[in-house]
C-alpha cells in the first residue's frame, strides 16, 4: 500500500520567462512509491513544472516542500535537490555524448582520488554494479564515448543514473519518446521496479496508454495551470483527452 505521508508538495508555483508565462499555477502532491503522470498539450507547462521540482528554475511564487521541509529559495538549485534524492532524466539532454558511460552515470558526482584525480576504478565498479542491478549482462566498451551506443542504450545509462541516486523521487520527461517498442517495455519494467522499492516517480508522457499502464494518478496541465487530477481507476482515455484540450 502507498504511504500516505506526501514526500513532495508543490503549492501554487509559477514561472515566467520575460513576457512568457510558462507556468501560471502548479500544485500537486506525491507520496512514497507513487507514480504520478503529468499530461498536457505541447507547451502546456509540464517541463517547466518539473524543472522547478528539479531545482533548475526557482519559482516566481509559491513553494515546494520535500519531506516536511519547505525549500528555502536560497537552496532552490539542482545541487540541493539532487542531494535531497531527486533525479531527472531529460528527453533530449540526458547524456554528454562524447563522454563514457561511467562518466554519464556519475554526472556531477565524479568520485575523486586525492582531491583532484578521477577515481576511474570506483566509477567502473559502480557502473558495473548499477548495470547489473538493471539486469544488463555485459557492456564491452566502458571507455568509449557513449554516443557510440544506440539511443536506447544511452537512455538506459541516463535512467541508471536516476535510479542509482534518485532515492526519493525519479522524474522522467518523455523517457520513451525516442525509443522502439522493446526498449519502451524495458523502461516501463524499470519504472515498476523503482516504484516497488519505494521511490516516487513523476512521468511526463504523451502516450496515454503508457500513462494508464504506469501511473497511479494523472495530473493534467492546461495553459500553465494544473487544472485536473484523476485516480487512474476513475477515468477513461476519452475523459483525459478532453481534459488535455479543454482544461
Amino acid at each position, binding site marked *: 500500500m502507498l504511504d500516505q505521508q506526501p514526500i513532495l508538495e508543490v503549492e501554487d508555483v509559477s514561472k515566467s520567462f520575460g513576457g512568457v508565462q510558462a507556468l501560471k499555477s502548479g500544485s500537486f502532491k506525491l507520496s512514497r512509491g507513487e507514480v504520478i503522470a503529468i499530461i498536457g498539450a505541447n507547451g502546456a507547462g509540464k517541463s517547466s513544472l518539473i524543472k522547478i521540482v528539479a531545482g533548475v528554475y526557482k519559482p516566481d511564487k509559491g513553494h515546494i516542500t520535500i519531506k516536511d521541509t519547505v525549500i528555502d529559495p536560497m537552496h532552490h538549485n*539542482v545541487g540541493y535537490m539532487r542531494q535531497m534524492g531527486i533525479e531527472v532524466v531529460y528527453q533530449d539532454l540526458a547524456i554528454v555524448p562524447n563522454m563514457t558511460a561511467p562518466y554519464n552515470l556519475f*554526472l*556531477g558526482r565524479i568520485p575523486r582520488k586525492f582531491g583532484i*584525480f578521477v577515481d576511474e576504478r570506483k566509477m567502473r565498479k559502480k557502473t558495473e554494479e548499477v548495470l547489473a542491478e538493471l539486469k*544488463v*549482462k*555485459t557492456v564491452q566498451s566502458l571507455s568509449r564515448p557513449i554516443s557510440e551506443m544506440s539511443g536506447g*542504450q544511452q537512455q538506459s545509462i541516463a535512467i541508471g543514473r536516476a535510479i542509482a541516486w534518485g532515492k526519493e523521487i525519479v522524474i522522467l520527461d518523455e523517457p520513451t519518446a525516442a525509443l522502439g517498442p522493446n526498449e519502451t517495455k524495458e523502461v516501463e519494467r524499470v519504472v515498476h521496479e523503482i516504484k516497488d522499492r519505494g521511490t516516487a516517480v513523476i512521468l511526463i508522457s504523451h502516450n496515454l496508454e503508457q500513462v494508464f499502464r504506469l501511473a497511479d494518478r494523472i495530473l493534467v496541465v492546461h495553459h500553465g495551470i494544473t487544472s485536473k487530477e484523476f485516480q487512474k481507476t476513475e477515468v477513461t482515455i476519452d475523459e483525459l483527452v478532453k481534459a488535455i484540450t479543454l482544461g
Partner: protein
Amino acid sequence: MTIHEKTNEIKSQESGGLFQNLRNNGLSDPQTRTKMMERLRDNVPFIAITLVILLFWGISGDRFMSLRNWTFIAQQTPVLLLLAFALLLVVTTGSIDISVGSNLGFSAYMAALGMLWFGTMGFLVGIFAGVLIGILNGVIFSLFKISSFVTTLAMLIIVRAVLVIVSDGRSIYVSDQPMSNSNITSIEAKWLLDLGQFPHILYVSIAITFLLWVVYEKTIFGQQLKALGGNEKVLRLAGISVTWFKIQVFAAAGFMVGLASFINLARSGAATVQAGQMQELDAIAAVALGGTVLTGGHGSVLKTVVGALTLTIVANGLTIAGVPPSWSMIARGVLLIIAIAISLNRKQIDVVK
C-alpha cells in the same frame, strides 16, 4: 552459418530489450571499414609529421637531418608548444582564445619588469600577468556571456595597446653580464638565458608537457573540459557550476601563456613590444594539426606536441630549402587546411559556420 541462422541472429538482436542491447554486437563489414577510417583519422598527426620529415630530408638531405638543425628545432618549438597548450585547454571546451599572442608579449614584459624591480623571483609577476589576463577573458566571456571569439579578439587588441603604453615602445634586454650602457634597460640574468638554450629548454618543456598530460587525462578538471565541449546544457541541468568552471579554464590557459612568455623571454633574451604578434595563429594551427577538432569535446596533449613540432619543422624545412618567407606562409596555410580536412569526420557534421 546459413542465411536462415544469420537472419534469426539479427532478429534476436533486434528484439533484445533496452538493457540487453548493451551487449556490443560483432562488427559487420561496413562498421569495420568505419573503424579503420577512424583509426586512420586518429593517426593523422603522426602520419603528417612523418611525411613532412621525409619530405624535407629528401629535399635538403643532411642540412635538414643534422643534429645541429634538430637542436635548433628543439629550441624553436617550446614557446609555440606552450601557447598551443593554452589553446588546447580552451578549444577542448568548444571556445577559442585568440588573445594568447598579445598576452605572451604583455606577460613577458611584466616578467622583465618584475625582475627589474624585485630581482630573480620577479619573473613571477609575468606568470601572474598571464593568469590575470586569462581570468579577465573568462569573466567577460562567462559572466557577461560575450562569445569567446569576440572577448579574446578585443583582449588581443587591448592587451597589445596596454603593452605599448606600459613599455613606451622600449625593450628590456636580458644579459649575462652587468651592462654599463645606461641608454638601454637590461636585467642581468645568466640563468634565464641558459634556460632558453638546449638542452634546458627541452627538459622544461618535457616536464610541463607531462604535467599537462596528467591534468588533461587524469584529473576532474581535465575530464570536465571535455564534457563541457560535449554538451554544456546537460552539465547545467545536472547542477554543475559551468560559469565558474569556464573562468577557471581561461585562467589555466592564461597560466600556460605566462609560462610560454617566460620561456620566450629566456629564448629571445628580450621583452619587446612585438613579442608574440601573430603567434595566436600558429598556436591555433598547431592545435588543429594535433587533430583537435575546434568544436570541442576531444583533444590530446601528445598530438598537440606533434602538431606544434610539425609546424616548426615545416617552417624550418622551407627556410633551409630556400623558400622565400611569403611562399613558406602559403605552404603552411595549405598544410593546415589539408590536415583539418583529413581529420574531420564529415558524416557527423550537419552545419558548418
